[in-house]
């Protein structure tokens, strides 16, 4: 069967993974691929763990990514990268935002947060890219709201799609006033 590439976007409800997934799938469509994307809305939006599956290739059937088959995991948060690690294929890549959002049981003092998540990920993933997207957005772009696009910039470097397509789709999907900032954010993310 023709090759299908699998991407996971994971994070915490409310972090804006959905805009990122929309841009990503727009890019893939523009690049001429068949694309399927699957996410679950509802309950999980209330601060729960969220995942979006994106699959592309010549022809895609199932909208779901199987365990051990993700080519790339883009994680908006460290613990979430650990949670979805079983989906990564042996030679897969993880791009992870160096951010810890504490889940309710940790906030309540009932559970621990794995602060050494990055060390573990480094051990398990063939390739690990870490960046502090909020810092990049604040310091290099000057607009904290561009974090998502910073992360997409880092993801894009590991996908074989022309830069112009990314720029075009970003332009189409962000508020007109923030286009310049978002393009800058995309470029900044690409440095990692």
């Amino acid at each position: 069967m023709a090759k299908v590439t699998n991407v996971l976007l994971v994070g915490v409800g409310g972090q804006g993974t959905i805009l990122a997934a929309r841009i990503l799938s727009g890019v893939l469509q523009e690049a001429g691929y068949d694309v399927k994307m699957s996410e679950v809305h509802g309950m999980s939006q209330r601060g729960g763990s969220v995942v979006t599956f994106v699959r592309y290739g010549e022809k895609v059937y199932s909208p779901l990514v199987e365990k051990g088959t993700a080519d790339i995991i883009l994680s908006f948060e460290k613990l979430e990268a650990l949670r979805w690690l079983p989906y990564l294929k042996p030679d897969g890549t993880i791009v992870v935002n160096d951010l810890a959002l504490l889940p309710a049981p940790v906030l309540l003092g009932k559970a621990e947060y794995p602060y050494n998540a990055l060390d573990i990920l480094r051990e398990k993933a063939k390739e690990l890219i870490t960046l502090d997207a909020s810092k990049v957005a604040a310091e290099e772009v000057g607009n904290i709201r561009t974090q998502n696009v910073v992360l997409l910039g880092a993801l894009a470097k590991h996908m074989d799609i022309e830069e112009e397509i990314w720029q075009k789709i970003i332009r189409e999907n962000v508020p007109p006033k923030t286009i310049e900032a978002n393009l800058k954010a995309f470029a900044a993310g690409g440095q990692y």
Partner: protein
Amino acid sequence: MKLFLSGDEAIARGAYEYGATFAAAYPGTPSTEIIENLIPYKEVYAEWSTNEKVALEVGLGASLAGSRVVVAMKHVGVNVAADPLFTAAYTGVNGGLVLVSADDPTMHSSQNEQDNRNVAPFAKIPMLEPADSQEAKDLVGEGFKISEEFDTPVLMRITTRIAHGKGLVECQKRQEPPRREYKKNSPKYCMVPAFARQRRLVVEERTARLKEFSETFPYNRIEWGPKDVGIITSGISYQYAKEVFGDEVSYLKLAFTWPLPEKMIREFASKVKKIYVIEELDPYLETQIRALGIEVIGKEVIPNMFELSAEILREKILGEKVAEEEKLDVPVTPRPPVLCAGCPHRPIFHVVKKLGLTAMGDIGCYGLGVAPPLEAVDTTVCMGASIGMSHGFQKASAWLGDNKKAVGIIGDSTFFHGGMTGLADMVFNKGAGVVLVLDNRTTAMTGHQPHPGTGITAKGEATEEIKIEDVARSMGVKDVAVVDSYDLEAVEKAIRHALDFDGPSVVVFRRACALLKGQEKLPPLEIDQETCTKCHSCLRIGCPALVHHPDKSVTIDVNACTGCTVCAQVCPFDAIAKVGGEVRG
């Protein structure tokens, strides 16, 4: 033009393209986005109805008036709408009527798991099952045609992965179907027994014709490949099967799944050596195919619970071992959903827990009141159950001599959906229950849809705002109070008063959902670390803006804090105040 659409968006698009002029629904995951995506079209009247039964009745009326209509709901909504549905099967329609049932295998956002394919034979209406977004759009058009040609409501059954899975969809311009005028026809539309008996015969004869139609319906198709294995499947299961078996087997892919195309099934079965029926949830196809005397493999290998996946097929059919998950030597702490920072439901649960009340809960964001640390809810069954159950519990308890009190906790949207009849029952039957209505001015759980208490329609127009306290009073409830949810003292006082009152009581806790747009922004709070004794009383309200540090200190995340002050009100040492403000002394 190709658009990247979810199944829900594609159904909305299909309704638009194939000339729908009317849509009605009550929100419910994973169906909500269907109507949400129809609301912007100026050619389509769209409404959020009070509940699913009303939505279907409104839709049926619109169909009689000549509209092509989409009515959408989640699987449990179909239970609510079952009454009009089972008789609409007799009356038939005028304009095409498609009822979408969005089922939720695995219960991502639901209280139970139902396979609503069973509804089609039960209600005796034809059923369509799209397998991706393109089919979801196309089959709305087919559904309208079938509905009009065969004079029947059509059930379109989708599941979460169809509803919320996105794919590329070829889109066209809108077509305007010819107008269908309403003609009075009591024997058809008035289901008194004498007429209903006549229509019963019509339904039977229609079913026979639909069965023939199913044989020729182009979306029921055979994909020939090697004939050692044949797979019969429908909906999302088709995608999982294709993912695993590719072109190595033959497929009978069904999209018109009631009545089933018997001849097509027999012909397929006669040409393949071994047949698997691959379907999620119930053995719906399997049972019917076996009844034709055809031997198949189905539920003996494929689970009848929870979502299906390509992995499950690999394991159960191909015998591939699923790789054991590597154990990580760190805690992969679960991240359950929680009530948001500033959620106005929190203070009510805090008091209910403090008073140790038996609380019959209901369905909505406030279902999260069952989670630690609030743990305030005893039951969750279906929309509106809180009132009936608390009344029944209390009545029985008095009857049995235990005299236990139970309160009902219900949201505003749920009150209108299924709570009002329960309240009338309580008043009528001399109950003395306490109904706590959490009026957060919206249907929050499903993404902030307006309801009869909000004063705004689906299309964004101002309308009459029905006040829950007025409803309660007009039903004869003598003890009615309206309280600001953020005022803990007032909340407790109101609940205590209601518990003491001899007769039914309704307390409306009014405060908008913290995520609702257009709310006044309150200044965030901070904890004075000098005054704080680390007693952790504040943590007991379970607010995600409160951060518990390894050294036992607690701070407030200013970005998350909405300034609701509930933590400050529970702090016994007055250590919490507005950022930069004075600590209350």
